[in-house]
């Protein structure tokens, strides 16, 4: 068991380390934050002085060593642009992104799964076709077009909803809807396939022949299958959420991490970008690790197979 845990832990740490290092190197090769901050017209001496103050004039390995040792002590650095600890800068914006992602996910589940089930149960009918068409449309437009269209219709022309920003529950609706559209559509389609797949299985016919009502069988098997589908789409949604969130957050002026990371990248605010990526990688890797761990606990065969 211990070996299993160790192997998984090493794997997780290795992933994190590699990701963070790649970002570190890539960022530093991509441009000069001092020039970005002071402006291109600034005194070359001033730029040089600032670079020195931030330790950017050191050779890359030295910078890296210093970064890693700071990390060990929990010091993630200061935002070059806002001149305060990176942890403050990023953590302030985390809740907004998490809220948006959670809302989008909830919408995807609450709308997508039932839609898929209904479509599967009424396969071939107009209902099925309409749901599928809706799903395809949902997957057919880029985020920002959809978002802007929603703003124009629901905020500008109808005046029902605010145009953006985090201003209470109503302002969450349009951004969450925009972000979740792809997820709703995916989930609907996949749920439909899953249900159809289940319905085509032999054991279903056997169970029915034995006298069990179809609904009971479906619920029993659907339950598990829906969970699996959900999980996989969850994974998809996570990556879509990070990417899509950048666009959605910009369109809706949502004060989240996506926008922060985009701006920080553009302005070469290295410490912020690094920390932001660390957080994302950490969450993905972390969840996977915990699950692997739990699973190894439950089923010995997996441990041995590793």
């Amino acid at each position, binding site marked *: 068991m211990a070996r299993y845990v160790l192997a998984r832990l090493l794997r997780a740490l290795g992933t994190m380390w590699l990701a963070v290092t790649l970002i570190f190197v890539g960022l530093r090769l991509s441009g000069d934050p001092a*020039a970005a*901050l*002071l*402006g*291109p*017209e*600034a*005194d070359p001496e*001033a730029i040089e002085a*600032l670079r020195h*103050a931030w330790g950017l004039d050191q050779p890359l390995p030295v910078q890296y060593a210093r970064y890693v040792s700071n990390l060990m002590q929990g010091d993630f650095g200061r935002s070059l*642009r*806002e*001149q*305060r600890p990176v942890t403050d800068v990023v953590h*302030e914006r985390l*809740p907004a992104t*998490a*809220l948006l992602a*959670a*809302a989008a*996910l*909830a919408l995807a589940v609450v709308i997508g799964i039932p839609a898929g089930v209904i479509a599967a149960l009424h396969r071939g009918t107009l209902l099925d076709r309409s749901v599928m068409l809706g799903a395809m449309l949902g997957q057919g437009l880029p985020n920002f077009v959809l978002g*802007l269209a929603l*703003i*124009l219709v629901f*905020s*500008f022309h109808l*005046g029902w909803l*605010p*145009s*953006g*920003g*985090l*201003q209470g529950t109503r302002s969450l609706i349009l951004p969450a809807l925009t972000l979740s559209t792809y997820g709703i559509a995916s989930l609907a389609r996949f749920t439909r396939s899953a249900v159809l797949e289940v319905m085509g299985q032999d054991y279903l016919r056997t169970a029915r022949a034995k006298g069990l009502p179809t609904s009971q069988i479906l619920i029993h098997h659907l339950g*598990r299958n829906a*969970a*699996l589908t*959900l*999980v*996989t789409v*969850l994974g998809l949604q996570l990556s879509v959420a990070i990417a899509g969130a950048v666009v959605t957050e*910009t*369109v*809706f*002026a949502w*004060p989240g991490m996506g*926008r*922060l990371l985009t*701006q920080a990248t553009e302005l070469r605010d290295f410490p912020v970008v690094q920390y932001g990526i660390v957080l994302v990688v950490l969450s993905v890797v972390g*969840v996977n690790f*915990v*699950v*692997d761990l*739990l*699973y190894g606990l*439950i*089923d010995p*065969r*997996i441990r041995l197979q590793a």
Partner: protein
Amino acid sequence: MRDQLMSRRRLLRMATMGASGVLLSSALLACRQEASDQATPTAVTGASGSANTPTPLVSQSSNPANTPTVASTPTLAERPELRVGVQGLPPVLDPDQALSNVGTRVTYSMFDYLIERDFLSGPTPGSGFELVPMIAAQWERLDDVTIEFRLREDVRFHNGDPLTAEDVVFTFQRLLDNPPDVLREAKSYFSTVANVEAVDEYTVRFTTAYPDPIFEKRISSWGGWILPKSYYEQVGLEEFALRPVGTGPYRLADFRADDHLTLEAFDDYFGGRPTARRVTFRVIPEIQARVTALANGEVDIITNVPPDQVPILQQISGVEVRSIPLANCHVLRYNCNRPELRDKRIRQALNLAIDRKLLVDTLWGGLALLTRGYQFEDWGALYNPDRPFLPYDPDRARALLQEAGYNGELIRYNVKPGYYTLGVEAAQAIVEMWKAVGITAEVQLIDWADLPKEERMVGSWSNSNYLADPEGAFWLRWGKETATQRDWWTPENPRFNELGEQQRRTLDQQERYRMIQEMIDIWLDEAPGTVLYIPIEHYGVRMGVEWTPYSFYYMDFRPDNLKFS
């Protein structure tokens, strides 16, 4: 069977993620609710714990009776809140660091100068350039190099400290005495100052290194904001940049960079009680969203309205567009060190091939101004109204290209998308105009600042005339010891720099006028760049908000410029 085993793992993953997701989001929602109820997250200034009563920061002021008087609460509640939708906010609020469009726009109502440029004066309110007393009640020149200011005695900082000559001296010494790197730009605006000292508690004397004809104008512009000595010395540069204290009608309440800046009324303002109880700047990057926010009543004013959106705003009821020409011009700058651009005839040809009027008419809907050479009307007596507009002459351009032996070398025009209003559109249009006279040209959407110097060719740029004077942009950006002459252009005619040095030490207006005009002639001849046009800045404003935009990026919310009806 294997399927079922695997599915359990997937189930576990789902459960973990789902559970943590639910827990996380409910926790966040709870926190969010709490936070917005309290409305005092990390960046709140020490000077306001709750809505109105300032808690005086510990100050070592010499005045023992240092208790601030605050206007009583009931009247505060009656005043409206002003909400402004902006495109961006500065990362820090130190006025000398936030020297940008987005920065000065919001710091203008938090800090004051010794002398104020009265934008509301003159025939076109918003573009005025008369100088009037502000923190200084009066001033006089004792001799060619000495200027003395007598301060008002009723000015207070947001934390309650009274303003004295010490604060003025401190403000400028901070810039002049070995300032930190981030303040170098502000320092450069006061390069003529040799010494500043307090004569008595309310009298300050400045000595310039040589006669400075525009010292008073400098004092009324960038870098001239008076800062509190005690408070600053307590908290230091970095803390001050996040929690600044000034003398202006509004003080910091809450700041989240890239999201919002909230200011609240400072009723002890010497210029009169502020007319709004609060001013909130909200960041809304997308123009459609800004327009929507104004139409919905979510905000009262929006900034950075491109000309194309003006007709839309005009159709929204309850909303109007207020426009003003900016003290700013979009220019092109040529890297004269490049072989393609070394011959000034080629550069002149580039300039002659641009149909500026067409750009103005089509891109700006006629709402931009052409310039007579490189001049701004607010130069006042130094402005020559008879100088012709910049010419459009494609035939002459072709002739010059031929003369210079131009052989189809590629000319690249660098422009950063989204930076200057209609910058990319203008670039694309201009490149087509160049192609029409036989120049091989292309647009490159990389900021010239991101290119190594040797690779820059044509850079899109803008010059803000931060002083109503040629020193404000012309000499400041194209003169000796500027980045332009360091990296882009060395004047062939040494007279340009000679005149430039002389004019800034000449107190005689007539003399200065002659020198400046000669300099402009040289600049037009050597063509290190060109002026495209003066953009007109549009604001969308809710009717009932009586506020006049200024010909600079400042948004002035002092009581004489902000009223509600």
